[in-house]
């Protein structure tokens, strides 16, 4: 039982960060039909921005601002920084390829991914960076929190999960309840027709990249609060986010959230109960079985293309 609870806690923390990444994939895919391979690297840059802000504000040993403010500033800075990065990437690497065959922006995205990861390595080296949140306020983020049975739910995890969910709910409102959100949906269904309705496509796409990249930035910081980051995490993280998005049904926002959580649970429980060694394999097998059973993803819609 304790193991079960503990694994659930793990799964939620893992899954909520996966969901944040998956959302970025799904948003961009929805609007541009582009698998944004560079998304994981935007996440990585976000985690480094968070690290930079942390160092600027005195590091974990002697921060110059209260802990909560420190965390908020780190997340905000990463969100803003990544949003800017996302916009620049869109403007220079994807926009010139709007009308090219679908594979062209895909390759361009790979190029951006290589460029970002290696530029960061060039400038900051490959050494892993540890936020060392443990040292912050005498490890209170680790030791405080609440207990469920024998299982300790650390404050840090509560912060991660709550922050991720708040962001997701905000996004959901933005996309489903605002005019811009509607424009995004329309653009995703038929870009040219959306333009014919007077929707400024460029603005919508830029906005999409702002949202997706900001979420990735937030995810980058949230994840790095617990585990070290390196310039190379982009690939693995991107893979996970991509998988989560596909499981949920790529293009669907609630799908991405669900996909992220499913992936988190699958990973955590297979490691906890079955085998650490073969966990990747087990996780993927579940996913494949799932996908063959439901090829359009959990909440995705089958193509409504009439013959």
């Amino acid at each position, binding site marked *: 039982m304790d193991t079960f609870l503990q694994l659930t806690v793990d799964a939620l923390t893992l899954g909520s960060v996966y969901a944040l990444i998956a959302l970025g994939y799904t948003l961009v895919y929805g609007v541009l039909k582009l698998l944004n391979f560079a998304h994981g690297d935007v996440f990585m840059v976000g985690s480094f921005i968070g690290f930079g802000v942390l160092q600027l504000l005195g590091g974990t040993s002697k921060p110059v601002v209260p802990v909560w403010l420190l965390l908020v500033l780190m997340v905000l800075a990463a969100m803003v920084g990544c949003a800017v990065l996302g916009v620049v990437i869109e403007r220079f690497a994807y926009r010139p390829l709007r009308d090219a065959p679908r594979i062209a922006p895909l390759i361009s995205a790979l190029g951006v991914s290589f460029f970002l990861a290696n530029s960061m390595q060039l400038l900051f080296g490959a050494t892993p960076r540890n936020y060392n949140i443990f040292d912050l306020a005498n490890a209170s983020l680790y030791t405080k929190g609440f207990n469920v049975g024998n299982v300790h739910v650390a404050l840090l995890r509560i912060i991660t999960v709550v922050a991720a969910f708040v962001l997701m709910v905000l996004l959901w409102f933005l996309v489903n309840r605002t*005019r811009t959100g*509607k*424009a995004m*949906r*329309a653009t995703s*269904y*038929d870009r*040219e*027709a*959306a*333009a*014919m*309705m*007077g*929707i*400024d*496509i*460029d603005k919508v796409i830029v906005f999409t990249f702002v949202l997706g990249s900001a979420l990735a930035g937030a995810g980058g910081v949230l994840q790095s609060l617990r585990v070290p980051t390196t310039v190379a995490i982009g690939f693995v993280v991107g893979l996970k986010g991509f998988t989560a998005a596909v499981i949920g049904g790529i293009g669907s926002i609630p799908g991405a959230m669900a996909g992220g959580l499913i992936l988190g649970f699958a990973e955590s429980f297979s490691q906890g109960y079955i085998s650490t060694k073969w966990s990747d394999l087990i996780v993927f097998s579940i996913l494949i079985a799932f996908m063959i059973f439901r090829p359009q993803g959990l909440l995705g*819609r089958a193509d*409504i293309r*009439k013959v």
Partner: protein
Amino acid sequence: MTNVGSTELSGKSLLELDRVDTYYGQIHILQGLSIRIEAGELVCLLGGNASGKSTTLKTILGIVRPRNGVVRVDGEDVTKRPTSYRIGRGLAIVPENRRLFAPMTVLENLEMGAYLRGGGAKEDFERVYELFPLLYERRSQLAGTLSGGEQQMVAMGRALMSRPKLLLMDEPSMGLAPILVEKNFEIIKQVHESGVAMLIVEQNANVSLSIADRGYVLSTGRLVLEGPAAMLRENEELRKAYLGR
């Protein structure tokens, strides 16, 4: 028969194309095309297959950009402006193949039509429902599951939602059952009478010329004929080429 290319460009027309050249990649489609539409006019654009009719509409809307030439709306040069800006200047289109937002409901599709005005006022919906009572019944159905004719109505309604000054229509009756074709022209007449200028692309030249004020004839991307509709209907060459039999 009017002399081709001699159109006086007053600079005050509702819409003007001034010697535009449009390309797809390296293929030269529209070649020095000039046309003009005055407020409240119903103009039809005729031409054989692949003569560039749809391309003309796309050029007007800015979906493709001409390499040379100028597009003016209300005297303002909009050549470098994006589609959304031009829509904001009072243009609307019923596109080829309808182009509805399939996974959205009929109501949402209509709302999208009035996107620039924040989703449409009550009277806009009322006007559209009056023209197409069926749409009211189907307002919460997903547009993608409608049949062709119903989709066509949604596309027209959607375009009217923005209260356009100029409505562009690309083959609005293609693939429609005869009864709907009939009705379609009724509605076009009705809308025109309410003061909206229109540019219609139609294969059915006979009928469209019968309701139009003026017409243009395109061939291989160039203007070959233009003039009042009545005059075009009498033109021998055109009869032979289009009206058949």
